[in-house]
């Protein structure tokens, strides 16, 4: 734990506390980094993201000091640092501090690297690991986008959109999530729609892009000069000689104005960027659906990708320069029929990629959200028609710090049919732990992603705190688990605690801890299949109570 200016503490696991006093020296030590600050109402911002850092825990320690714990994004490189700041820190003073970020890779770089499936085989292990994470994140995004797009209310389960939020019932979210992998076909993603809708137009534009006649000054033989301008005259006046022929020199060339067709326009630069982005997206899609390579959608996207590569290399558009900075659309982009369609497609693609870029920094949070859906699905399978079933899942139309599900989402309890011993089962999200009457205050500082509480009676309950980690190593995990065990033992009635750590695609790191009551479980892609392991071990351990 690093003590930065005696105010901010950076922890390498979510359960870290200022009292741990473990120093974090660099990014590589962080598994799922967090920063702990004395409690204030003010939001904490980070240079790396536009939204405030997500508050994952708030608690008061034994010395009656109040703390807030914020999750940190991952960086774009193996070693990254960033500034965090608060407009009103402790004592009302502005606060600014540099903190290390977890190791990461730039999403666009990753996409470039992984674009060609054949070459991907030769990539280093670390990049291939990121490929799996990318699959998870992209699948998660597409699932939630699909969920937001479809409103299917009925008399018993209301659904609707309001104020940038899509309200869907747990019943549908859970069942859709559980069935998401059972379709047996490639998902209808944005790139599929674009491949179908803009391929032809894109071809036409690449073959005959809109060009402008640009005036330029070039040396021409005297006989061929048709136009000169003052600048050419000034040049001519500066040349030695008595007449034009002497001034034309040995080559007998003078500076004159020529007009040439030029495809380097804003709209063609946009098309060039579109070709590039669409190609990357095609690569993503093909990679994600490699198991369905014969599917019509995948074939369409593959064909589209081949065309994109051809157009990028051989069409006039290749002569356009790269875009620099955001595009301010001109008249052509807004009103020319062909370019307008491409502009619309470009915006959609840009928006999607921006969303992916934003979420990429919060991989662990997206993984945790996916696990949460998984647990909802498991619970629903066990007990249909419960208050949980009817609870609303409030989904932001755009992810905020890696999570689509609004922090206002809370779940109702499940009746006693799941566990023979428990009268009620409650799924509580980590951010609400301090508000939930069933969770002991000692848990607040541990910042679990969510809790499963089995209430045997009004006074007796078993708690299953869940942490989700997406990037860690065996060495770091062992160290972190030891710290966690120590903390859990300090909690009253620790024998009724069943801690669970979910890892992504790290089967070698699975283990038991906390005297056999805790488990580290690895979930593989697709999570829908592997989440059943949680059902067997986690719910089983609660049932054993």
């Amino acid at each position, binding site marked *: 734990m690093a003590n930065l200016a005696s105010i901010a503490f950076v922890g390498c696991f979510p359960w870290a506390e200022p009292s741990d006093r473990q120093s974090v020296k660099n990014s590589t030590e962080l598994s799922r980094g967090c920063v702990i600050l004395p409690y204030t109402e003010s939001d904490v911002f980070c240079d790396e993201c536009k939204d405030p850092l997500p508050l994952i825990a708030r608690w008061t320690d034994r010395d009656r000091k109040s703390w807030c714990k914020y999750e940190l994004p991952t960086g774009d490189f193996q070693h990254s640092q960033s500034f965090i700041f608060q407009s009103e820190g402790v004592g009302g003073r502005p606060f600014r501090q540099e903190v290390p970020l977890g190791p990461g890779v730039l999403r666009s770089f990753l996409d470039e690297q992984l674009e060609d499936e054949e070459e991907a085989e030769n990539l280093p292990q670390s990049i291939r690991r990121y490929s799996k994470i990318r699959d998870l994140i992209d699948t998660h995004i597409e699932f939630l986008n699909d969920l937001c797009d479809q409103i299917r*209310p009925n*008399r*018993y389960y*209301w659904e*609707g959109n*309001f*104020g940038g*939020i899509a*309200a869907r019932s747990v019943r549908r979210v859970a069942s859709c999530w559980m069935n998401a992998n059972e379709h047996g076909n490639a998902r209808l993603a944005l790139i599929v729609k674009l491949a179908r809708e803009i391929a032809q137009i894109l071809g036409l534009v690449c073959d005959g892009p809109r060009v402008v006649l640009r005036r330029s000054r070039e040396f021409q033989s005297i006989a061929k000069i048709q136009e000169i301008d003052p600048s050419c005259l000034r040049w001519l006046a500066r040349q030695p000689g008595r007449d034009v022929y002497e001034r034309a020199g040995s080559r007998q060339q003078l500076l004159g104005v020529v007009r040439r067709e030029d495809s380097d326009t804003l709209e063609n630069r946009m098309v060039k960027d579109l070709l590039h982005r669409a190609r990357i997206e095609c690569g993503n899609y093909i990679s994600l659906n490699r198991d369905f390579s014969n599917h019509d959608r995948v074939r369409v996207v593959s064909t589209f990708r081949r065309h994109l590569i051809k157009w990028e290399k051989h069409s006039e558009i290749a002569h356009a320069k790269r875009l620099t900075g955001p595009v301010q659309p001109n008249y052509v982009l807004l009103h020319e029929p062909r370019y307008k369609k491409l502009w619309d497609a470009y915006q959609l693609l840009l928006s999607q990629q921006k969303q992916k870029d934003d979420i990429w920094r919060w991989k662990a949070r997206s993984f945790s959200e996916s696990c949460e859906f998984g647990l909802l699905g498991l619970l629903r399978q066990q007990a249909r*028609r*419960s*208050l949980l*079933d*009817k*609870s*609303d899942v*409030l989904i932001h139309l755009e992810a905020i710090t890696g999570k689509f599900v609004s922090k*206002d989402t*809370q*779940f*109702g*309890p499940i009746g006693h049919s799941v566990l023979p011993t428990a009268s009620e089962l*409650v799924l*509580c999200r980590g951010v*609400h732990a301090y*508000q*939930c*009457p*069933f969770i002991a205050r000692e848990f607040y500082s541990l910042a679990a992603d969510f809790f499963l509480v089995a209430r045997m009676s*009004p006074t007796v309950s078993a708690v299953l705190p869940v942490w989700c980690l997406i990037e860690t190593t065996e060495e770091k995990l062992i160290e972190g688990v030891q710290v966690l065990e120590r903390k859990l033992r300090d909690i009253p009635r620790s024998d009724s605690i069943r801690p669970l750590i979910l890892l992504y695609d790290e089967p070698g790191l699975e283990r038991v801890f906390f005297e056999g009551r805790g488990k580290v479980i690895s979930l593989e892609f697709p999570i829908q299949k592997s989440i059943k392991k949680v059902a067997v071990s986690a719910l089983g351990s609660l049932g054993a109570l």
Partner: protein
Amino acid sequence: MTEELDNLPRFLGVSTNGPWIQFARRNARNAKDQIVASILGGASAFPNSILLPRFPGEPARLDLGEKPHPRGTGLSWPLESIVDLEHGAGRLPIGLVIETIESGDFVEWMEADTHRYRVSECLAESLAQIVGAASSSSELVYVIPNSWGTRLQQGMIDAFRRYDLKCKLLWRPIAAALEWLDRFGDNLTNYEKVKYTTAGSLLSVYIGYEHLEITELELVVYEHEDRQFSLVPGRGRPSKLERLPSFGYRQRLKYLDSEYERTFSSQSTELERFSWNWNRLWCTPLLSAAQGSVLKNEPIRRTVDSKTDRVILPLSQLEPLDLHQRLRQLSIRLHREYTGIVVSGSLANLAFDESSRVWDWVIRALRVESESILVEGTNCELGLLAKGACRFAELLDAKLPTYLDTLPQLEMVISEGGEPKWIELLDPAEKWVNGGRVWQRSQQIQNLAIAPNSTELKLAIAHEEFDTIREVIAPLPCSSESVEKVALSVEILPAQGNARIELHPAKKALFGNDRVYVNWLRMSEVVLDDGKTATKDTYLQNLPRIFPELLPRLRSRSKLQAAEIALHRVWEMMRQEDRVTNVNKALKNARNALREKDQAMYPRDATAFDSEGRCEGSFSIVDFMKTAWPYYLRHQPEEFVRAIAYTHIDHPEFHEHIRESIKWYAQEDYVIAAGKCFRDPEHIAHFFRWCISEQGIGNMNVTRLKAMSEILRFRANATKLLSSELCLELMRRSCDIFEHQRLRRSGGERFRMVCLVIVYALRRRAFDDSFLDPESKLATRIKDEFRKAQADATEGTLRLIGGAVDLFQQLQLIIDYVDRQGKGQLLIGD
């Protein structure tokens, strides 16, 4: 799912009476093509509820099915499920909807932020989601309690309209009656076929968890256009007595209390008990299981309900024992035997522990009988009210008679001849109006005026739902620089909200193409100058007037006793043809008794006979005159005219005799008699002309001034045949006398009488609105004189002789009347 509303029929009956929403529609798939009712979510589910919005933009929605949504379930987690007094509840059970609408139509829920919702809108929004897709082609009929006034109706209609639902409202007893008629109507053939005669009576008994509603309806003969006759239910004006608090929820709560004590330790808090009760009552099928379950027919021990319980339910202090007594009391107002009885409500078919049914217990307590009883859940399926509502819509659509209604009492103030008065806006010539069809006032209300440069027209309304006067506003699309005459047309759809009052300007083009209606949403309570609210009487009293109200003499019972004895004595003597001197003595005694004023009624002027010639007792002055008048004609006793004058008698021959006697040499007795007894405008005009032209008012004595003042203040039509010129002359000369009296510092009777003449002569404005312009020379002179008198009164140099009124105020009142701004009565009379 027991019901499907996916293929919505054209008409849909909806009832939210009780814990579940009931729908009814004609089932086209049914071989018999019957109207079928269904309970939303199923009768075995937890009670239907409305989930209040938690976030901006989130709609209110219905919660139904086997398991509830967590919101407002009374659990301790999640946060939205918490229900307590501090935060309220995020769930509004349908069982509380009617009561909540009646008690203000608002509900509050605090979750992160305080939200306040209009219940009627939440209900409409929720129903719109259920019937939404097909609502454009479907029409809902929503059943409302019989006591709902136009304000609640309009609120409900507006709420439905806001969510694009076509909806009509129907009275609860009428919905029940329509079902009864459908079942038993064909048996009723033996009735007199005369339009609007009553062919029997029907008792509608609604027994709900929350209250009982016992309504008597008439079965009225209705004549169709093709001269066919049928019976329709007729609804009279609702009475407050017909609604009683019920015991259903209390019984359930008591049951829950005992269950809670059995299940949990006594250490639990009141809040925990409350939350548990709430959860069990509204989020489990407890009430559903009660269908056919047992209620206790015994008084409930707990008489004080906790504050938290009152949040759960609209609990009354009424216990079943009290209810039985109150039903017995109510039975006094009811008939013993009815053509039919229809019993509806969720509680109707439940059983008491000794196996008698609730409906049977209520009917026996009411001591009513009928051979044709229809009971919801017994010999009729559940959803009787919804079915009745659906039937109503179909009858209406088929242009068949539905029911007959009576209109609410709605009055407004108009000025008739300068005299403000209340008139009935919805005053039907006939007792009944057709339910479901527009009723229109046969005549427009004429002669309303819009003041120059006004942007709105204000109307004072006496509404039967309010104890005090309300003011409504009709916003005008344009203003005019001159006074504009307008008329009002009034129409109303019974039970469908406010009346539509439209303004019709005399100048047709005044509003252009705009139609101007009174805006009921801008109705506000009238507050008088003294900060108090207004009743009908106080409103009129505080209305600025252009002339004072009549100030009639009142009759006093105490003063009649002495006068009656004296008159009987005179009567007896006249019968016996006694000597004239003796009769004169007796008449003198009678006169003294008749003129004597009742000081107990001060400052009002009261004698044995009032100014209309009536007395409190059984004495008949008309019979007296049958003996006295012939005696007078024969013997001419000199005290007769004056004595009889004090009875203010309306005797044409006596009046004619006085008229003929008013000559230049007229005796004072005839002048007094003219002042007290003249009613005919012709006689009055003659008298005034004589006073002014024959004698000259400047020389007029107090008797003549008093006579004139009495005529002016007693008789509404006194100035009818007096020309404005004559009245102006009267005022001019009266002003002269006033000035003279003021300069003499004399506040005696002459001063008082001349004040009365001046102020009551302003009543000429009733017949000539332009009479005595406040800015005219004479008016200015009068006001100046009175202001000088005010100054004198302030200095103490001018004082009224007799009486204890504030002279300054009284003089100011006269000035205000001259300025057409008078308020209240003048108290400086005799």
